[in-house]
């Protein structure tokens, strides 16, 4: 075990926790100190995560920075954490967005400032932990830890119907968590360990095996928990409410990172642990994902509220992620992971800018806007770039992810691609229509008197996001190779225990067809 490396990894986790504790100690009378503290701590965590990237060995696919400490010996619970080429980027996404959330909330949060930032840092701690944990019990703990601060962020600093939204969010997620908990305990009873890596090894050696029924139930228990989080159609109705009611920072973290807990969980736990069930359910899940893609887009199109619109668009975008995973193709999985990151950046940016508009106009209703481009050209430009990223314009981030997902799916199931591609048409409809109604047109007098262009603090939020959109769209090679090594491994693991292999169509199959024709 490389202690220095493990320490590096731990610091990304511990810094937000220290920040949380420190924030709780700041006197209530000094809100400015809370803000500065949160900014400093979240930036520190971000720098730490950058260190993690630089120390990460890009030539390897497996887990790195492996740390395994016994936590509760009596039941063999370990504090086991590590990083791989997928979780690395999700962690960086989390630490990248948290400082931006602090900046976005700078003026908009005026009540209970210290608690707000404390919860934000606790949320960061929980999220980083979820992506690090390699012990199923530890994973569950972090999963719950991240749930609590989000519940309060929505419930305390939210808008009018915040209690309804927070309770709905809590109930939905708890329902899933309970299922997952039961499955984790069942796994423990069979394997006598919570260690994910050990269980995987046992499965591959054949020391541990499940009957088809057992495997299916376990798979579904995990999958439903994750699918609620994603959210996969038809388990999505908590999302629009939570988003609309959440404060801006809550929406950003919720959409950009928390939803990825679901897709990450599916990819990291569901598929490798229960490959046979995953393959059996794949067509059904793909159908739900495709329905989600089209349904989310159609419902987004008719939303009168900006945040709700973006929320439903997330249902649509996350459908691509799930579809990519269950295409069981290299490109599809790579695209799914890339799409998780892309969605984090572009939807985070959408919520951030919608938040800036709300701060100015005190409304989220589309009809209260119009002509913003005239009075706030740079804000409008930022939103335009984000819109274009979101609808998958080439050279911006989402295109790469969507292309890979659809191409990967097309390799295995061409007809799925046809339906999923409809979502690409619809995304242009709802986003451009939104853009037209909010930013174009004659200037609404209320807009003229309330809306001004970006100020330096807001520039500091927008520029990093836009830079990432362009970077990830133009030079995906900075990110994809490490992802590809992990997904290749997941694909390999997904073949274990699957007697009747799902037939793999590849380019080779195609060229064979060509050769036959010759």
């Amino acid at each position, binding site marked *: 075990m490389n202690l220095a490396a493990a320490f590096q990894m731990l610091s990304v986790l511990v810094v937000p926790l220290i920040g949380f504790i420190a924030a*709780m100690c700041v006197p209530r009378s000094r809100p400015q100190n809370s803000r500065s503290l949160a900014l400093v701590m979240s930036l520190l965590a971000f720098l730490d995560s950058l260190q993690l990237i630089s120390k990460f060995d890009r030539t390897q696919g497996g887990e790195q920075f492996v740390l395994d400490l016994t936590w*509760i010996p*009596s039941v063999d619970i370990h504090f086991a954490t590590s990083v791989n080429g997928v979780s690395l980027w999700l962690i960086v996404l989390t630490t990248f967005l948290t400082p931006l959330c602090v900046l976005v909330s700078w003026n908009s949060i005026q009540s*209970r400032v210290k608690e707000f930032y404390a919860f934000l840092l606790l949320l960061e701690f929980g999220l980083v932990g979820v992506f690090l944990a390699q012990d199923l*019990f530890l994973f*569950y*703990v972090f999963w719950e830890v991240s749930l*609590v601060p989000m519940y*309060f962020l929505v419930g305390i600093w939210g808008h009018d119907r915040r209690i309804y939204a927070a*309770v*709905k969010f809590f*109930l939905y997620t708890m329902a899933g968590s309970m299922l997952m908990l039961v499955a984790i*305990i069942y796994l423990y*009873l069979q394997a*006598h360990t919570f260690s994910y890596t050990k269980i995987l090894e046992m499965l591959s050696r054949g020391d541990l095996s499940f009957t088809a029924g057992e495997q299916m139930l376990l798979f579904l228990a995990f999958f439903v928990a994750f699918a609620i989080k994603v959210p996969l159609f*038809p388990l999505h*109705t*908590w999302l629009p409410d939570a988003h609309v009611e959440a404060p801006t920072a809550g929406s950003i973290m919720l959409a950009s990172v928390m939803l990825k807990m679901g897709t990450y969980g599916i990819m990291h736990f569901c598929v490798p642990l229960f490959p046979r069930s995953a393959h059996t359910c794949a067509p059904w899940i793909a159908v739900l994902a495709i329905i989600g893609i089209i349904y989310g887009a*159609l*419902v987004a*199109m*008719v939303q009168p509220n900006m945040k709700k619109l973006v929320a439903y668009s997330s249902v649509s975008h996350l459908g691509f992620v799930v579809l990519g995973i269950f295409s069981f193709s*290299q490109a599809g999985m*790579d695209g799914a992971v890339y799409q998780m990151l892309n969605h984090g950046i572009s939807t985070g940016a959408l919520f951030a800018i919608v938040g800036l508009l709300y701060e100015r106009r005190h409304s989220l209703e589309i009809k209260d806007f119009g*002509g913003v*481009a*005239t009075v706030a050209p740079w804000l409008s430009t930022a939103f335009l770039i984000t819109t*274009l990223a979101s609808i998958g*314009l*080439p050279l911006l981030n989402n295109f*790469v992810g969507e*292309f*890979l997902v*659809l*191409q*990967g799916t*097309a*390799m295995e199931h*061409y007809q799925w691609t046809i339906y999923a*591609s*409809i979502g*690409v*048409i619809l995304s*242009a409809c709802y986003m*451009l229509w939104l853009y*037209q109604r909010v*930013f*174009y*047109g004659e200037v609404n007098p209320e807009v003229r008197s309330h809306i001004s262009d970006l100020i330096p603090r807001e520039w500091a939020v927008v520029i990093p996001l836009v830079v990432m959109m362009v970077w990830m769209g133009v*030079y*995906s*090679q900075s990110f*994809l190779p490490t992802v590809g090594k992990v997904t290749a491994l997941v694909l390999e693991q997904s073949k274990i225990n699957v007697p009747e292999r799902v037939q793999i169509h*590849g*380019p080779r199959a*195609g*060229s064979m*067809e*060509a050769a036959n*024709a010759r």
Partner: protein
Amino acid sequence: MQLWLIPLLPLAGFLINGILGRRLPKSLINAVAIGSVVLSFGWVLKTLFGLDLNTAHTEHYFTWIQSGTLSIGCDFSVDRLTAVMLLVVTGIGSLIHIYSIGYMAHEGGYYRFFAYLNLFMFFMLVLVLGANYLVLFVGWEGVGLCSYLLIGFYFDKKFATNAGNKAFIVNRVGDFGFSLAMFYIFRTFGSLDFATVFGQTAGASEATLTMIGLLLLVGACGKSAQLPLYVWLPDAMAGPTPVSALIHAATMVTAGVYMCARSFPIYTHAPAAMNAIAVVGIATAFFAATIGLAQTDIKKVFAYSTVSQLGYMFVGVGCGAFSAGIYHLMTHAFFKALLFLGSGSVIHALSGEQDMREMGGLRTKIPWTCWTMFCASIAIAGVPLTSGYFSKEAILAAANQHAPWMFWLGTITAGMTAFYVFRAWCMTFLGTYRGHHHPHESPPSMLVPLAILAVLSIAGGLLFKIPTFLATFFPEHEVPEDFTLTLIASSAGIIGILLAFLIYGFKPSIADAFARAVKPLYTFVYNKYYVDELYDNVIVKPVVNGSRVVLWKGFDAGLIDAIVNGTGTRARNLGSVLRLIQSGNIRSYATWVLLGSLGVIAVIVGIASSGGMR
């Protein structure tokens, strides 16, 4: 050969003007915008002179997307076809940039206009330089974006932004086909590189290639405004006129033709798909020409004319006369850009008037505009020895060989084309002035491009013999010379011109009498066969209302949430517990969090250890 410089120069222009333009003086904006495009044109010339064009020259810059065996490079390539496109795009592009100095002089958002225009040049050049389908697609989507931005340039006008949205979304429908074609190509050939894919087409099954060909055609129909996806182009005229000339006539809309011609190794092995191209092309050419007969907005006439002429190019490509299609692409770029720039000059002279019923008699007031537009008009009408004559003859001859009915329909269309173009010319320049503005001739920065394009419209066909230049590039396509056919087609054009002069030059009352005589038909055509209304009522409204009423209010809120809230009601006890702890005291919340977490952990450990011991 540093091909990357060709698109990167306009991109640099876009970045400079886009970011700093608000603070720059107009002269500097002009220098950056026009300089970057002209430099790019110069670099194209230098590159082409330094290359042996008989083989494709490819440059690889970096790997753009890689996943497993899938690897897409950022690769540019130049061959003879690209050379033609590069020259048309940068050449015409330079002229239109120069023209815009004068045209946009009094408009707001000056820097924004030139920034978008430069960005368009960047994407268009990427489109023609791309060495694989995905890089082509980058340009393809990018030009669509610029088209959207420039159509909606006057973004406080609802009709302009509506038109922008319509253009983008209808193009997305086409792109749906294009991307499905790409997925199928990669699935079949394991690559998207032109060289690799085209090297394998000979061995692929005809069914596969036909499917790919048809899907590509869907994409081409979107971008090149063919039936049934042509509806966005007439509305796109909401943008400033130089945009109509550059994007919606000379370059972007021809991308579909370019893409189909580029994919000739696929199409030559898929005759059914090729036939589909030809049928779509001839149907569009005829259909759009009939609409053009009855329009009164000068830009709308030329918009439908563009749709119609693009149809000709498709006929050429679909009949296997690829080089004829590209020939017409080039000559059309000359004369249609000129027609638009000319009408822009008219509109400029009349302070924004676009209705031809408010024009007339401008021949003496703006003579340069009048006579340069006359050159373009005789070219598009196919008067012998003008540029349009050569390319149209080549296409019609190929059509005759492919299917004689296409030749006849094409010839009738040629007659109608000549008629509506000269109808527009007569209504604008002949007779007496019917409006109430004070027409003034445009500044030299606008007239010089008009003059150059006038020369090209007349002599461009003779100067640049595209079929000869591309003879080795495309598969051989012999069409026997048939003087009778040439005679028939040319006379159709001449008859159209004479008819237009007769009616609109000498006796405008005939036209009104005729319109009154066939009023229902006239109204039907004048309203563009109500296709927009049809699409709106059959597709747009049902989808939007269905989403609102059935999916959102019905399914989402009505069904799922009802179930969830029903569960919630039963869990109301939990709700009241939650309300109890809503004490407003944060320290107590934190305590709850801590206690809760510890409690959960304790319970789990309890369960787990008891289970473990069993």
